[in-house]
């Protein structure tokens, strides 16, 4: 049977790993290549890099990190942040990324998702959706790392990216991100119930039972977390053993 995936995410700014608290206050947590290797050796099912510098002049930095990481980690590597053009995707894939995650550019122009999935295959196109609750059971899509409101309903958008060839959705709750109070389970449930592609839960993990909630209550196919792993609170192995003990199937 297909296992639930645990994906540590490394937020990278100017070549260093950081973790945003509500996307604003940043702390340094080390070297990305070294960190990725630790995760992969520790049993991470995938590794995710999110380049939060994402300005054009610094694209070479992340590409270099991807290149180095891909030579040492033999599990899937997803890279996101500032992916705007087909050329950006080509560069990342050539450097050794297995999937790219598209956020703002997908919202601006959903045809970009279509074009990218047609060219590279759905298997390597992840659409990252940053959603914020606007009223009871209603979430809106935000862009630019959570700064810009779009007026787009998150559920409608999730369906739309699926239709346009996205292979997976990386769903981040802007309300929960950095709070360590758990995923927005209602948001997850709503999106997983209205789409047929795998959804990766993101934003808010503070303890291992939050991972459980994301999978069992939220219906996520994979759970992404950053800070609980970075600062050594938990190892990937702890997370897997915990989930396994609660009868959630994982790759041990």
């Amino acid at each position, binding site marked *: *049977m*297909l*296992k*639930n*995936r645990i994906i540590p995410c490394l937020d990278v700014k100017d070549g260093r790993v950081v973790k945003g608290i509500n996307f604003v206050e940043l702390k340094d947590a080390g070297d990305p290549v070294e960190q990725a290797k630790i995760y*992969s050796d520790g049993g991470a*099912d995938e590794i995710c890099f999110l380049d939060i510098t994402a300005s054009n002049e610094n694209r070479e930095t992340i590409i270099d990190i991807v290149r180095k990481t*891909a*030579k040492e980690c*033999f*599990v*899937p*590597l997803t890279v996101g942040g500032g992916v705007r053009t087909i050329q950006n995707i080509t560069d990342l*894939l*050539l*450097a*050794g*990324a*297995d999937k790219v995650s598209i956020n703002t550019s997908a919202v601006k122009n959903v045809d970009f998702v279509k074009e990218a999935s047609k*060219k*590279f*295959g*759905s*298997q*390597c196109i992840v659409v990252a959706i940053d959603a914020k609750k606007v009223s009871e059971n209603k979430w809106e899509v935000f862009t630019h790392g959570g700064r810009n409101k779009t007026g787009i309903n998150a559920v409608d958008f999730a369906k739309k990216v699926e239709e346009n060839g996205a*292979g*997976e959705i990386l769903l981040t709750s802007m309300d929960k991100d950095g709070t360590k109070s758990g995923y927005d389970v209602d948001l997850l449930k709503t999106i997983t119930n209205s789409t*047929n*592609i*795998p959804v990766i839960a993101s934003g808010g993990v503070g303890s291992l039972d939050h991972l459980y909630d994301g999978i069992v209550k939220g219906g996520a*196919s*994979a759970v992404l977390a950053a800070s609980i792993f970075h600062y050594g609170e938990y190892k990937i192995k702890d997370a897997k053993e915990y989930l396994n003990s609660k009868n959630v199937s994982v*790759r041990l």
Partner: protein
Amino acid sequence: MNVTIVDYQSGNISSVINSFTEVAKGKVNIEITSDIKKIKSSDKIVLPGQGSFKSCVNSLNSINGLVDTLKEFAITNKKPLLGICVGLQMFADIGYEEAETRGLGWIAGKVSKIDNQKGKFKLPHIGWNEIEIQKESKIFKDIKNKSHMYFVHSYEFIPEDKAVISATTDYSSKIVCAVEKDNLFGTQFHPEKSDKIGLKIINNFLKL
């Protein structure tokens, strides 16, 4: 020994290159090319494949003489060839992704969309799944039954002769995830992304 990874613009093959290079570590020469002459003179071939069945077949056909050279290598001369993902799927007679497309026809069968039981199973089938070994295969030497491999696909190869199946995986039904027929090997999963156990499969292939 020379092993060629066929580079026919079939999408992202960086990971295949990285993992084979890691396992080969100087002992085996890894060549990444679509050059017919080099392919002819190599000892083993790796045929990767990403994207759709149709786009991969079209890319293969767009390189003059490539399909015939591969056929001569694998079918006439019976030298070892490993197909990965769509690389395996193309062994089939026919595929139905995007449009009905003729495959290489090396192993009788077809490639159809996984029956996801009306949405009960999400597609693509992405992630780590256990393989159930169905017969002894040279590339599974020292690989335990129920080992986890990394998958990402929405279509499955259905061979006519079930005897070629070396492993299946359970996702809505028993999906064929590895085949072995004489010198032909194929995996639906990605050994290059399947951690140490995947590298072991690559090592087994290189040691054949």
